[in-house]
């Protein structure tokens, strides 16, 4: 790997549901578990509230990876939101992969409020999987001559 590539730090946008994954992320903090700083969290009320347009928009604005994380199936604070998310995210993931974007750039996880360690691991794994892919250029906005 060249020096430039070694310096490459993937930028991740992480959509976390307020009740489970954001709380899980807080628990990782309380437990002082260290993990890479590449993911900037955006807390939403529920994964069900995540429109596929957010994913496309994040990639369009240059995100190297997008993470969606919510409550485990059956545990959604709003009962059904994560079921709806499961379907929509599956579709957008399949579509992104279909046009030839590396499938590893989009990731979805279920992290509960008690899974601080898992949250840290999810981010760590994601960063490690993104590094060899290099910066995301396929969907990134390039306008003007």
């Amino acid at each position, binding site marked *: 790997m060249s020096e430039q590539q070694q310096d490459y730090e993937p930028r991740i946008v992480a959509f976390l549901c307020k009740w489970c994954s954001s709380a899980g992320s807080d628990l990782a903090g309380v437990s002082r578990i260290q993990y890479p700083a590449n993911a900037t969290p955006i807390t939403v009320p529920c994964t069900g509230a995540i429109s*596929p*347009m957010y994913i*496309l*928009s994040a990639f*369009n604005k240059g995100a190297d990876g997008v993470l969606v994380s919510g409550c485990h*199936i059956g545990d959604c604070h709003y009962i*059904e939101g994560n*079921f*709806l998310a*499961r*379907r*929509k995210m*599956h*579709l*957008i*993931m*399949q*579509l*992104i*992969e*279909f*046009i*030839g*974007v*590396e*499938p590893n750039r989009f*990731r*979805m*996880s*279920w992290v509960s409020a008690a899974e601080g360690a898992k949250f840290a691991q*999810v981010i760590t*794994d994601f960063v490690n999987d993104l590094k060899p892919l290099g910066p995301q250029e*396929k*969907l*990134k*906005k*390039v*306008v*003007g001559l």
Partner: protein
Amino acid sequence: MINLQDIRDTARDMLTKGEVRAVVGYRRGSRGMLAEPAFITDPAQADDLVWDPTCFHNLSLYLVEDRKFLTHLRKTANAPIAIVAKGCDARSIVVLLQEHYFKREDVYIIGVSCEGTGVVDERKLAPRLNGAHATSAAFDGDDFVFTTAEGEKRLSAREVMADRCLECRNPFPKEHNAVFGEDKTGRQLAEPFAALTKFEAQGSGERWDFWSHHFDRCIRCFACRSVCPMCYCDECVVDSITFPVTAETTAEDKANRIRWIERSAVRSENITYLMTRAMHLAGRCTDCGECERACPVNVPIRLLNNKMERQAREKFGFEPGASIGGPSLVASFLDSDPGDFIR
């Protein structure tokens, strides 16, 4: 074999009796053999109606236009509107009904079965005619018969029909008020999603080369959106230009428009547009193929929609346009929905 006179008589009859206020159908166009959409309000015009292999338009688009026109004029319809609908078009109408775009009693569906021969794809036909100019086309059993200056040309429908017709499972308008032609559901010419399967056999690199090439070529003319009956949104999320200002529009609404993409027709913005459209059509697209036919630069848009449709069918057991009271794909879920992609 459909007797064209039956269709004409039905239209004339309904218009004369005032049972419908207009009939949306096909008539001979001004360019050679091609049919064009027709809006008939006078019973005498009923004899203009045609039914031939060039009737590929999805006329349900005009039901949407009609509804928008009425809304704009703040009018309510005093009678239903009749529409000549093929199997694929009838499914589009079902989706529109599912989404309450109009009521079932507002539309009288005159179903016509393509009887399994589908409609012609001009681009496939051109090389077969070898430069000859066709002045008319007709159904004849499993063949299409074209009349040219050099005489009749008979071709097996299979060779020149649209790809979507080859793959079609349901060449019969299940939802109808009246129907003409035989039900040839079950005739298999090509595997459904044949083109998609072939495409997906390629690796990710090849797929990106293919798509990036096409995304570069897209000129964002929005013909695909304009011709699609499902794209009836007053303001498309990716595009603020068609923002309708109604009595209910507030200053806040105007200020809060989201600019998801830039207006320039460059690759990244085209991708966001086309993929958003594919997502929004997931579970709603009935593969009428008009988007691809209308595209002036031949972007293979159908592949994107087919990909979503295949996911819907195979992973979620979902069929678009199956029944008026049915669930919508993205507003519902099943316990069996795949979840192993989730860590």
